[in-house]
């Protein structure tokens, strides 16, 4: 080997070792710098993607009407989430009263955001939204749509954030099945790149008496997701020798999302 190549290889290995041993804080600093540098093209790229999508969906509204419609949709969605939350709280309140227990009332504050980019990476199920730290968004906040849980904030930046979808294997959600004592951990499945991905609900009891069509809600345990958020519907149940697993269809059509809501306040 030529001496110059050997020196280059040693320098390269030193650089690779340096990169592989960076702390999460340093990695975040590198990412912030990277996204700051590509910010102008990121905006243009997102805008282009949105335009192409609008064209494909044959949106014929004028720009003003579209903006107004988006604003109304955002507001309607926000109000629907708050309404459903109040209903859930009412039910919860009745249950708690019945059990002569008390639980602190929750404050459910959300920020509406538009999706600006879908699946920016090869393997991870993520999307990007146009709201970031400037709107109070931080790491690991729940992201919802009108229909249910979408995912969690993975990386918040100044004006945009990355959302890890519930269809990603890494996004685990503690859930319960309605009308049943069953609780388990729901997560996406590796390699589900089709338009109708399913989720896998694990750690159910061995004799779980579940049926397709039963809805799945968050338990609120685990320090990430608020309780009683709809996540999906059971499609099928597979019974194993030690425990049972179920396939769950997400409540949200993730391929057709426009507006999402980030839950700002913690309630656990």
């Amino acid at each position, binding site marked *: 080997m030529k001496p*110059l*190549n050997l020196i*280059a*290889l040693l*320098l*390269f290995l030193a*650089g*690779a070792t340096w*990169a*592989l*041993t*960076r702390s*999460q804080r340093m*990695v*975040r600093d*590198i*990412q912030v*710098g*990277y*996204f700051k540098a*590509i910010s102008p*093209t990121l905006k*243009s*790229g997102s805008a*282009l*993607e949105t335009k*192409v999508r609008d064209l494909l969906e044959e949106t014929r509204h004028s720009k003003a009407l579209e903006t107004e419609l988006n604003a109304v949709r955002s507001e309607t969605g926000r109000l629907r989430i708050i309404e459903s939350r109040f209903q859930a709280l009412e039910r919860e309140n009745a249950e708690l009263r019945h059990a002569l227990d008390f639980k602190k009332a929750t404050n459910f504050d959300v920020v509406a955001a538009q999706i600006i*980019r*879908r*699946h*920016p*990476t*090869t*393997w*991870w199920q*993520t999307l990007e939204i146009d709201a970031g730290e400037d709107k109070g968004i931080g*790491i*690991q906040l729940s992201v919802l749509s009108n229909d249910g849980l979408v995912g*969690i904030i*993975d*990386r918040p930046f100044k004006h945009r954030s990355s959302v*890890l979808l519930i269809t990603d*294997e*890494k*996004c*685990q959600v*503690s859930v319960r099945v309605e009308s049943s004592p069953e609780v388990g*951990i729901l*997560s996406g499945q*590796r*390699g*589900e*790149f*089709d*338009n109708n991905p399913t989720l896998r609900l694990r750690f159910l009891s061995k004799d779980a008496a579940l049926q397709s069509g039963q809805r799945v809600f968050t338990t609120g*345990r*685990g*320090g*990430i997701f608020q309780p009683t958020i709809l996540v999906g519907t059971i499609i099928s149940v597979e019974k194993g020798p030690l425990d049972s697993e179920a396939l769950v269809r997400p409540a949200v059509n993730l*391929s057709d999302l426009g507006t999402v809501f980030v839950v700002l306040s913690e309630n656990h």
Partner: protein
Amino acid sequence: MFRYNLSTVFLLLAAFLVQQFVPAFTGLSHSRILFVHLVFLCSAVTVATPTMLLLAFIGGILWDAHCSLAPIMADPEVYTQPVESLRFGYSILLFAGMGFLMQGLKPIFQQGKWHFSALLSGVAIFLYLAAEFILISFVRGDFTVTRSILRLMTYTSLLSMLFSPMIFWLLYRLAKIFDHSLYPEANRPKRR
């Protein structure tokens, strides 16, 4: 030569900007054109090993900055089996591996036969994706290859490979601008 090498670095950085405009093809199992990888692979066969390693370092670190996920801080009593991600910086090594693979065809490329390198770029991207998937499976456990994954890897490598002649043309233009020969063997007079 130095100016040409520097121009490949800038071309790689430009590929990161172009990548922002390339969406995933949802109808093709979310496959995409990997311009960053393609520019690196095509450049790797035209430069010396030190420059290739520099490109691998820059490409790998920026690609990881683009892609890596944050760790999830959840209650370990509830989430007993957290799912790990790939460590930041792993792409640097994968890029270098692909670069060395491409440099294996350098003698043929220097004879003016760029077609083989163009084909190999598609193979290298497929191997890169396969290596990534194997690493993910190793870190997370449970190695299962679905049709969807195979489609993603195949379509991504094929779509990317289709653009390799364009990247070679760009490199050829850059070499001409900076008075550098990409095919020294082809230009050398033949001896009888």
